[in-house]
Structures are given as C-alpha cells and as structure tokens.
C-alpha cells in the first residue's frame, strides 16, 4: 500500500511516497534528505511532535516564559501535556535550555525554557 505524506522536518515540505506493508514502512521516496525517512517511520508507526508553549512566570520580568520539549513526544499526548503545562509556575530566573520539568509526564523528554527571563 502506498501513502502520501508531507514531510514537516523543514520548510522544504517534501512530498513523500511511503510504501507500507503489514503496517511497516518498507520504502520511502520523494525525500531530499535522511530526515524524510525517519519522519515517515515515526509518522506511520507512532507520530511524534515537539511541543512548544509558554508557562506563567511569578515575580519575574516576563509574564509568560516560552518553553518546549527538548525532543518530540507522541502526538497523541499533546493535549495531556498542555494540561500539565497550565499547572506549572516559574518563579526563578531562567536561561534558554534550563530544564523546567525533568522527564515530563514520564515520557522521557524534558520541558525546557527557550528565552532568558530575569
């Protein structure tokens, strides 16, 4: 079975053709780099996304401190992760890359700050 996908790894947005047999990816074509292949594997078997959002600061220069997960998490967990982000407060200065939550939701990814906030 063939499936058409658009790669989201970079702005080139390559149109990919994925050859799937028994729910497994056997061949990817149309990609201009290796990222297309790994994207297809994940997209068919377990779609993953990096989550970006902003967390409330308390007593800091910024009201909202932007954050992201340091690696992708399963797409199906995005809304659950957002619910958790709403509960978090940051009350001490952070730099980009500082870990806000270790092993976020037990998914093996860290939630990190993306902007300096004093």
């Amino acid at each position, binding site marked *: 079975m063939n499936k058409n996908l658009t790669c989201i790894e*970079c*702005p080139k*947005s390559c149109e990919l053709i994925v050859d799937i047999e028994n729910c497994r990816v056997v061949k990817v074509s149309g990609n201009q780099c290796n990222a297309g292949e790994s994207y297809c594997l994940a997209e068919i078997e377990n779609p993953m996304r*990096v989550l970006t959002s902003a967390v409330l600061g308390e007593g800091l220069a*910024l*009201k909202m401190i932007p954050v992201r997960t340091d690696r992708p998490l399963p797409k199906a967990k995005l809304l659950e992760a*957002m619910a958790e982000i709403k509960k978090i407060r940051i009350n001490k200065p952070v730099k*980009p890359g500082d870990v806000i939550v270790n092993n976020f939701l037990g998914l093996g990814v860290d939630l990190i700050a993306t902007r300096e906030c004093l």
Partner: protein
Amino acid sequence: MLEKDLVIVGGGPAGMAAAISAYENGVSDILLLERDQYLGGILNQCVHTGFGISYFKEVLTGPEYSGRFINKVKAIDKIEISLKSFAVNLTKDKILTFIKPGLIQKLKAKALIMATGARERTREMLHIPGARPAGIFSAGLAQKLINIEGLLPGKEVVIAGSGDIGLIMARRFVLEGAKVKAVIEIQKQARGLVRNVVQCVEDFEIPFYLQHKISRIYGKNRVERIDVARVDENFQEIAGTKFQLECDTLLISVGLIPENELIEMAQAKMDKKTNTPVSNELNKTSIAGLFVCGNAFRIYDLVDSVTKDSVLAGRQAAEYLIRGSGRTIPAGLK
C-alpha cells in the same frame, strides 16, 4: 548635533544581524534603536519551532534564534543599544529623530540601516462587509496576546486566510483549549508552508476551506457568526454555496506590509504597491547611505534568509562608510 557613523532602526533579527556584520566589517560607532523594551522583534512571540534550520543547521524556536543574536549584540561594546526608542522622523540628509521616555533626540547618521519589519494586513483591507464587533484580531496580535501577555482572545475561532502565522495560531488556539472551527482561504492553495498545513491544521482535524471567502460578519458587541461562500476563478461568490459558522473570534492572516514610512519621509523612491523602496540592488534605496533590510525590504518566508541578507546590509553600510572616509575597501570583508 550628535553624530553617529551608523544608526540601525529596529532590534529584530534583521537589525541585529546588520549591526553585528557592520561591526565585523570595521564600523566602530553603531547605535541600534529598538522601540520595544527587549531586543528580538517579532521572534519573541514566535514560540514555535522551525527557525534556524538553514542558518544554524538546527531546529530552534523564535526566542532561541533571536536569543543567540541578542547575546552577540550585547557582547559588542561598539554597538550602543537604545531600547524603548521610537524613530519618528527621517530627512534625506539622514537626520533622524527618535523619542524615548524622557527624551527627544535628533542626530545625524553617516549611514542608516532601516530594519523596521512589517505590519499585518487588516480586516479593512479584505473589504469583508458586515458588523464591526469586538473579536476580530490579526493573527500576530492574537499570537502576542497568548504567548506574551498570557491572555486567550477567544473560545470559538475562525481563521481568514492561510498565511503561516494564521496556521501556527490555529494549532496554538487548539492547544490552549479553544475550538478552531475553520481556516478559510480564497486561493486554490494554502498561502503558508505546506508543513504548517500538515502540523497545525491536519494534525488537529481543523476544516480547511480552499477557494472560499468570508462574505459577512455578524455580531452586536462581539463576533457571533460569519457567512462563508465558495468562490469562482474570479473570486466571486458562487450562488447557493453560502453557509454559516458560529464563532466569537475571527483571525485575519492575509499577509504582511513592509513598514517604510520613515524612508518615505526622507523622500526615498517608493513602490506604492508593495510599500518597499524602489531599488535595483538588494537592501539599497534611491538615497546613498540609506539601506533597508529584512521584511522592510521585502517579505521573507524564513528568518534564516532575513539573517543572510541583513549580514550583507551590514557589510554594504560598512563599505559605504569606508568609501566616504576616503579609504579603500580592504580585501576580505565578511
């Protein structure tokens, strides 16, 4: 009058890249003006990823991308940074006036780089008939309210136009718990990147109507509903295709207009249609020593390209200043 070798207006990605590049090419008297209280420009509110793939060879968020330039600019003592500084007047002799709290400053610049960015096209420019209630926002304004101010502008949202900011905001609203009822695009294709259609609209099963337009807005105090209709090849409404969507918020995402009022004041030749300087060379204007870079020069899809072209603007300004001082251009400018 106070004199400066190089004044740069705008502390976003274009202005910062130009400032660093001018310094690296030998300019040692640089003033960087930014109207906000922070450097970084629009990237500060672009908390999503997708920046830096070409320039840094890694995937960054907007604040991470601008943060790298902010650190670099701050570390160069020859670049004087003036925040909360709003340029209000420019003459053809490159006399610039700016205001900041408690101060009106007039100065003469030997060279100027305008990195003033762009503003969003508005509902008025789309000529959508109907009421004028609260609840109509440009996509970038909604982005600022959510990501910077921590405010959610609405619960049931329709997005007019499919520019990248609108697509990004479709996902942002869903993640914040709002319902995005539709993205409506008059053209046959999405205006923004296909990857943003996939990861922001299709990922959340948001209805995406191509070749449709919003034909009327209803609502007394707040937006209540809109009419949507299919359009033909000439963008005219096709009879019998109209349907209604209930919503409390309408986002407008139909492109950007370069912000060039200052160079217009200075009587630089302007292309009235695009609001950009008439120029046969990248970053240049009809006035010698007056440069424009980034989204003010032309609208870019990617900040990586803004950085690359703004590095050139810094070098062009450096060359202009070296020539003006009677020296010859050294080999190996960056």
